């Protein structure tokens, strides 16, 4: 039996980031979560497995903390959780991450299909699926909103700029899905319960033979602060405020 592997990233919840006045970023209150887009990758995996009866697994690479994500990941259906937890993940770029994932995939017996999201909600770099495909030298299809799988043959619909493209590809291959086709359902209590009992496999960067040195050297990370005038009309009745706004827009030359 073949295995379908869903890759996901454990990211900081962007809603919890606090930008300090000096533009530094306080992440101390930020909780982790599975990147929303990756929940769709897991859902796509379950939908394909429902068509084919294949085995399912999840794979993630993160800091040792990433172990916390496995219960949530597995409550979404997959049978087995593979994870690589290493402090090197802090500085990992897509080069490192794709190498770790590709090496891990080689160790998962019978993997014939890897499903990723287009990008993660923190970096949104959208590199992982094509890079993993290149490293495994498997064909890769991105921007997928629909898949039909019959045996080894996959017919996929891609949503690109201005067109829908239908392609066929044989397994083994890498697919990146868009969230549109694969809205992740809320896991039920039964699924959450059983997730705690599913088998987990930890893999190490060293045993996978990966070099954790990133190509990207981070020079700075700063919070974005809008530099706008903030002239806000609060007091007075509605017509006063409208008059003030219209005269301000006139001065700006916006009404000519």
């Amino acid at each position, binding site marked *: 039996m073949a295995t379908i592997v869903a890759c996901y990233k454990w990211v900081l919840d962007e809603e919890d980031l606090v930008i300090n006045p000096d533009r530094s970023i306080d992440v101390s209150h930020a909780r982790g979560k599975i990147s929303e887009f990756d929940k769709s990758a897991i859902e796509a995996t379950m939908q394909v497995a429902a068509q084919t009866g294949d085995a399912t697994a999840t794979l993630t690479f993160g800091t040792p903390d990433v172990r916390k994500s496995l219960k*949530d990941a597995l409550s979404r259906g997959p049978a087995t959780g593979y994870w690589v937890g290493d402090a090197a993940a802090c500085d990992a770029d897509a080069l490192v991450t794709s190498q770790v994932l590709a090496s891990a995939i080689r160790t998962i017996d019978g993997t014939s299909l890897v499903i990723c999201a287009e990008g993660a909600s923190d970096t949104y770099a959208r590199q992982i699926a094509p890079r993993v495909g290149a490293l495994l030298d498997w064909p890769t299809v991105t921007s997928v909103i629909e898949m039909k799988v019959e045996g080894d043959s996959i017919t996929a619909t891609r949503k690109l700029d201005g067109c829908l493209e239908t392609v066929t590809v044989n397994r083994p291959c890498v697919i990146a899905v868009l969230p549109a086709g694969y809205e992740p359902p*809320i*896991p*039920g*209590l*039964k699924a*959450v*319960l059983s997730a705690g009992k599913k088998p987990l496999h930890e893999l190490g960067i060293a045993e996978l033979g990966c070099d954790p040195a990133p190509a990207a050297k981070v020079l700075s990370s700063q919070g974005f602060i809008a530099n706008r005038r903030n002239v806000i009309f*609060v007091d007075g009745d509605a017509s006063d405020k409208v008059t003030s706004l219209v005269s301000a827009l006139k001065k700006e030359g916006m009404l000519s």
Partner: protein
Amino acid sequence: MVNTAKKFVEKEVAPVALQVDETGEFPGQLFKRAGELGFLGITMPEQYGGLGLDFTTAALIYEEIAKSLPVLTVNMGAHAELAGGLLNMLGTPEQKEKYLTKLCSGEYIFACGSTGPEGGDNHVEHAANAVLDGDEYVINGNKVLVSNIGVADVYIIFIKTSEVDPITRDGISAFIVDKNTSGLTIGSYERKLGWHGSATGTISFSDMRIPKDHLLGPEGKCMQATAVSCTNEFLICGPVGLGMAEAAYQMAFDYSMSRIQHGVPMYDRFQVTKFKLVKMRTMIEELRAFVYGTLADKDAGNLELCEGRMLKIRGAEVAEEVAREAIQIYGGVGCIDETGVERFWRDAKVLAIGGASIEALQDFIGTMMRYGKYPLA
């Protein structure tokens, strides 16, 4: 587990909560989803499709849902705690296989009819009776203020099968009645102060013939189990009241911070607002400790029947007071139903009465305090 409830509330319940309150329609879609997500059989045995979990887990889920749509917890409580508790305690393996599995999945909706038109808590004055005729019971009479009527697939009703012993209450039997049973009439929904969407009304029986194997538990001896299943429902009213109070408090707090009075938020401008909020918060934290302490007792098997009742009393009282003060903080805006805060007060008022009024519960507790135990328990 709680995350599942939180997501469900955020994505599916909250967007329609005000609409349910406004239209008063039974939230059928939400109820179905609650079944799919496993919320209807949390404490039921795994063998019959339940999750076999403790009451603390169930309470955490009820609390989350009550923050957004209290009436959904009423629909769920009547179904899962009252009917589910009885089926689980009294049902034969065949009955459990046939009904309890579908109760846990939500495939069937259950309603529970106990209150007779003559007396609320007084089960002795049951106006409905059953007479055995061959292999069938013939039932006549009616039950009022039954929730989930009309939408229910199965009704569990309490019917007098012989003279009722005033002390032991023997003489009352429980029956499983399928919705299509001939002789069963479903009345229209009552218009109520709160709990809009609970589908509450009267069901009547006219020469309704129920086969013997639809008797739930031994004939004439269902009240002991009922006392327990009611206790389970009263227990759940604790976290429900807690969730409602938390929601009303949070709305009032946010409002007091966003409403600008004399250039500063109302919270900072008026000490009275701040003090009200502090008092509300203190009551909430008190209730939280009481709720989860009591539920820990329940899960450890150390619960006394009167503790469950106290939880309902306190849950309703705190929810009512916090919601009332929340409306007060909002001022005029709080009286407008679109604001969404006043419905917590309306629902809390009904919580203080529906299912068993605070006074009926106090009476029961008082008897236990007087004699060391309730005659029944």
